């Protein structure tokens, strides 16, 4: 006896989905909910169990200068790294899409940072930034510029970390642009060229709009990565000097796994989740429409 097709589709559909769904719920949706719950509890300690504290953790957060500093840093970091890495990715893609001597090598060079572990390259960048004999200072020294304490100054620590992030991400995003560029019929550019358009003009009016879906995709990835990746901070500055290079996720790690204040860490995580959710909503509701239905 066979079930009617409609019911079978229901059953099979859910069965196929089930394994993924169980894991997804366990490690994404359930923890999101428990984060909220734990952020309203106190941290258990020794013999003292967790108790309901309401908004205490949030009040503490509002009064915590390190939280605000980390939040500001995260915003600055995102606003700095995202546009730069996307612009560079696009530039790289355009450069290696055309005829270029040694194109294979250049592509390789752009892409290698992606496959190197951040934790490893951070140690190398640590050398680049070392005052005095670090590579950056050695190079600047040739031009008679004195040494600078790159990671040890308030103003330059975060930008230095951002440079590492841009270096790491741009090549990865380039791949997507490259794939997209190769999908655009070359006839387009030729056509425009025959019509006498400058390359920049063609790029701006033809290529770039066609790349919009790619840009959107890359943008989402860039946003995620700017809030997700803090490995280099662990190696290079540990959030210093005086929290000027602490990002939100790094602070969560500090609070959760060094201070063992899991409830406060949960409250901080809620802020991060709220930011990511806002980014998602803005992107879905606003950008999508602008690009496709304007």
């Amino acid at each position, binding site marked *: 006896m066979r079930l009617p097709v409609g019911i079978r589709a229901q059953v099979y559909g859910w069965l196929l989905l089930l394994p993924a769904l169980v894991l997804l719920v366990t490690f994404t949706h359930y923890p999101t909910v428990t984060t909220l719950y734990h952020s309203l509890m106190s941290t258990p*300690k020794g013999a003292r169990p967790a108790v309901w504290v309401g908004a205490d953790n949030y009040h503490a957060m509002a009064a915590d200068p390190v939280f605000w500093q980390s939040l500001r840093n995260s915003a600055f970091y995102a606003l700095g790294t995202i546009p730069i890495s996307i612009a560079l990715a696009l530039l790289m893609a355009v450069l290696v899409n055309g005829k270029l001597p040694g194109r294979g090598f250049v592509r390789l060079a752009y892409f290698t940072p992606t496959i190197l572990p951040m934790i490893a390259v951070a140690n190398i960048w640590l050398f680049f930034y070392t005052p005095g004999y670090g590579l950056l200072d050695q190079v600047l020294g040739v031009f008679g510029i*004195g040494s600078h304490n790159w990671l040890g100054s308030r103003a330059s620590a975060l930008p230095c970390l951002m440079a590492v992030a841009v270096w790491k991400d741009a090549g990865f995003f380039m791949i997507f642009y490259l794939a997209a560029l190769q999908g655009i019929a070359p006839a387009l550019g030729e056509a425009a060229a025959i019509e006498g358009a400058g390359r920049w003009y063609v790029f701006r009016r033809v290529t770039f709009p066609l790349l919009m879906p790619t840009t959107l995709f890359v943008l989402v990835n860039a946003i995620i990565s700017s809030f997700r990746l803090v490995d280099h901070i662990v190696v290079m500055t540990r959030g210093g000097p*005086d929290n000027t290079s602490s990002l939100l996720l790094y602070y969560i790690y500090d609070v959760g796994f060094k201070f063992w204040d899991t409830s406060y860490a949960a409250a901080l995580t809620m802020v991060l989740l709220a930011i990511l959710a806002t980014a998602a909503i803005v992107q879905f509701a606003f950008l999508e429409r602008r690009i496709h239905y304007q």
Partner: protein
Amino acid sequence: MRRVAGVMLAVMIAGWAGAASAQTTEISFYYPVAVGGPVTKIIDGLTADFEKENPGIKVKPIYAGTYQESIVKALTAVKSGEPPQTSVLLSTDMFTLIDEDAILPWDDLIKTPDDRAWLKSCFPAFMLNSQTGGKTWGIPFQRSTIVLYWNKDAFKDAGLDPERPPANWTEMVDVGKKLTRRDASGNVTQWGIQVPSSGFPYWLFQGFTTQNDVLLMNEAGTQTYYDKPAVVEALQYWVDLSQKHKVMPAGIIEWGTTPKDFFEKKTAMMWTTTGNLTNVRTNAKFPFGVAMLPANKRRGSPTGGGNFYLFKKSTPAQQAAVLKFVKWITSPRRAAEWGIDTGYVAVRPEAWDTPEMKKYVAGFPFAAVARDQLQYAVAELSTHENQRVTKALNDGLQAALTGAKTPAQAMKDAQAEADRILRSSRR
């Protein structure tokens, strides 16, 4: 017939196993070292020797990585109900471990006069961080202090006596000025001194505060004194090294690259741990010296490093075995062996009287500098809510060193933050 034989064999095996487990006590201990390094081999050797001498006891060392990771692992194990029997963890973790209800004081195990004598036999400086509320919670083992390393060639080049390191704060500035070299365009090519300030600046800062004869916290670990005038003064001196006297690089100085800066002659003097002795000996391509930190009102340095802790939830047999093991490994002969092999400070005066140690010190006198400094040493900063209270100070120090706040303001803010944290933890 074969079945009967099989059963008999099984019974016999079970009997042996039972007998064996009745005799053997197994203890595990977490050890804070990255696995595979030379130290693991030393520990493996020591435990093997101990097991040979004490056939009833099996010791299982578990190499847990850095101190930070070891405490995480230990606390996780406590929460999951299967803690190790003992563990070497930072001396500053004492209050955290007490607050988490994870450890027992050693006093509970001490029965005989011999035990009591042993408990009192370490350098007193190391015990400062191991006792609170009249009980001893930690047995010093892998301990260090801060010392000054100087480049003798650089001293010679600057017209200074290469055998005479600065003995006090004024001399350190004066010597630093002579050692700081600038090129034609005014860029510094060699600094006088580097005192690292990344990661855990509070530890190095304790050098300055101790020399200025002031303590940063009370013994109960419930109160800090970050904003005392003498503390601010100590910070002012540290800040002045770069901002006023220009003998130290401005901004935050990375702990990890400081030894390299010293090898590269980017700095003529540095403050760092005694644990770097072997590293410097291997990598410095010039004659160097090791000295006690300079004095101001007095000499001084904090101690650092790890203690043995006794974990709850062990059987009495295991606790007795732990005591036996820890007593054994801190005995004069073993402590001396340990100090010679690793460069850490042997924790008991008797260890320095052993023939092996005397021979070692005769050949390498710098090894004794740390020991001699111990009489001036104080406890490393440690309170309840240790990580946070320490971070409050670290942030304040970095704010002052990077010029964002005056020393007075930075310490006032740090103290306010520490008060806030400790008040809520006392609640």
